[in-house]
């Protein structure tokens, strides 16, 4: 059972709550037409993101996916950062150049994903490799969905990390669905943790809706990685409670399954755990809830006031110096 102090246990609760409330406000903004493009939910998966990232320490580097809102919050990005991203504002971490959770910087310990799933795995292996060469003692952690484990990049990345014994932790978030494709059409493997055997690394499976269990499993893997034991693949069993994105009503998902998983909601479960263990009283959690709510209110307001980028910014930042041309160049230079 986890080695966490009471304050840390309450912090885990706060991050999960923050994850959920930020997303609820984003849904409002989406319905008001203020979100540019799609909104990707992590409802029901908060424990996986928060519990795993919480096992890291300063100097470690993560490569989250678009459903890992909890990860970037644990890593210190603000709700405003996330909201300005979704609203394509100039003040967002990507300056309006990229969408949703596609942002990060190595200085802040976050590597931005690209939309091609699996691609982060070799890149995070490279982060771990650089860390080892620079004697930084860092651990790299990344996430992949059940769908993403079918890509070639996932295979190449895990295999390379295993051969090199790199300090990399891969959390395979099995939420049952890749867009509309169910797990059984994604792989013939019994479970994703089994895939670890093919790489000669430890594979672990954990209840992804139990934040302490996720933390414990991640912590074991992080400690192993830091002590030179190489990568670990952790399969976190969870469920995607919403569609692929907000536009998707997920008609393909059996209602009974959703009901079953609603009973396992990670935040409600964790609240009960905190009560039963005596770590928190109802009033403690209510205080956290209202603080989170107020914080997010302020952040929404600030995000909405943030400006959109100016058009000329589109031409800059492709290279370390210089800007792209936009107009056709017709030059008359009569001999």
């Amino acid at each position: 059972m986890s080695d966490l102090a009471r304050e840390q246990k309450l912090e885990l609760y706060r991050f999960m709550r923050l994850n959920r409330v930020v997303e609820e406000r984003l849904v409002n903004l989406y319905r008001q037409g203020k979100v540019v493009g799609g909104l990707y939910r992590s409802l029901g998966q908060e424990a996986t993101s928060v519990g795993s990232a919480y096992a890291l320490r300063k100097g470690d580097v993560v490569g989250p996916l678009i459903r890992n809102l909890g990860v970037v919050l644990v890593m210190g990005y603000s709700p405003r950062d996330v909201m300005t991203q979704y609203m394509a504002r100039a003040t967002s971490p990507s300056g309006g150049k990229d969408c949703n959770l596609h942002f990060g910087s190595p200085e802040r310990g976050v590597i931005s994903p690209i939309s091609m799933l699996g691609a982060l795995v070799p890149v995070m292996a490279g982060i771990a490799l650089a860390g080892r060469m620079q004697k930084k003692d860092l651990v790299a952690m990344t996430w992949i969905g059940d769908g993403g484990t079918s890509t070639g990049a996932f295979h190449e990345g895990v295999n390379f990390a295993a051969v090199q014994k790199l300090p990399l932790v891969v959390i395979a978030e099995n939420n049952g669905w890749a867009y509309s494709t169910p797990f059984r059409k994604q792989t013939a493997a019994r479970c994703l943790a089994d895939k670890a055997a093919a790489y000669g690394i430890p594979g672990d499976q954990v209840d992804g809706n139990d934040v302490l269990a996720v933390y414990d499993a991640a912590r074991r893997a992080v400690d192993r990685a830091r002590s030179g034991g190489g990568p670990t693949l952790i399969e976190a069993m969870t469920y995607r409670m919403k569609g692929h994105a907000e536009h998707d009503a997920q008609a393909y998902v059996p209602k009974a399954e959703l009901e079953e998983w609603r009973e396992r909601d990670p935040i409600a479960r964790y609240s009960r755990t905190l009560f039963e263990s005596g770590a928190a009283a109802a009033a403690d959690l209510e205080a956290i809830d209202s603080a989170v709510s107020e914080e997010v209110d302020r952040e929404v307001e600030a995000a909405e006031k943030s400006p959109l980028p100016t058009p000329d910014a589109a031409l800059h930042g492709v290279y370390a110096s210089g800007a792209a041309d936009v107009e056709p160049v017709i030059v008359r230079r009569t001999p």
Partner: protein
Amino acid sequence: MSGPAHLGAPDETATAKGQTTYVDAIREGLREEMQRDPSVFLIGEDIGVYGGAFKVTDGLIGEFGEERVIDTPISETAIVGAAVGAAMMGMRPVAEMQFIDFISCAFDMITNFAAKSRYRTGVGVPLVIRGPSGGGVHGGPFHSQNPEAYFAHTPGLKIVQPATAADAKGLIKAAIRDDDPVLFFEHKFLYRRIKEEMPPGDHVVPIGKAAVRRAGRDLSVITYGAMVWTALEAAKILEAEGIDCEVVDLRTLFPMDEETVLESVAKTNKAILLHEATRTGGIGAEIAAVLSERCFEYLDGPLVRVTAPDTPVPYSPPLEEAFLPNAEKLCRAARALAGY
């Protein structure tokens, strides 16, 4: 000097002592950069103990150890992916594609991860991807390609293709020092066929600067890579016929040195765009567009492409010879253009 006729024989004096081959020049450049900067490391297949399929990295593992000369599984995506991650952390990786044809296996990592990183997140990716491109050695469809045009279409990449041994050294050093991802396309036919004396000291050739390899009045041949030698060979033949060719070696395909190209064509008023890569959507087409936009009134003839045809690279010697541009094909085009 032996080999398929598509490449011109470099200067006969290029066998004197104290001279460095193209392949040795690349290795010298790599070694000097690794000595200068501990963040430079090499990663690729069979590059360590074996020294690389073409021995470009021969001996470097002995000098720098397996931590800085990393042999990998057969995983181009992981090679480039790991290089991208390491570069984001401040390292200066040089990734080898055993044959440049295999760069397609890492296309996503190059075009979507490395190329777009600075623009969308502000995080630069100072990595070099290098490897042997080109034909003339009967390597067949998967060991002979010239894939530069795929990448010239991707903002965020720089593309370099040295024609001479001195440039091979100077440009690999510049590529390693560059803060953006650089694709460094070597020509395998040149590895051991050309030699020259290396300029002294820390020889760095700036990215984005073309070189006029032969001055001429009648027409400009704009080219790069091994085709520079083809152009020089053709220019000799044409000189005897009274056609005076200027040969411009682009050296960098992106960002292109448009000024040198424009200056040359403004002087000769006629241009041939020569490359070993296939025709449609090639670098030659891009140069033709630039000349049309920026040099139209200087042109006294059509912009002519001499390139490989739009086919895969065939294997059998007579087929490959039919495929590759050579001095004879270039001369035919030059005569027609000169008489236009």
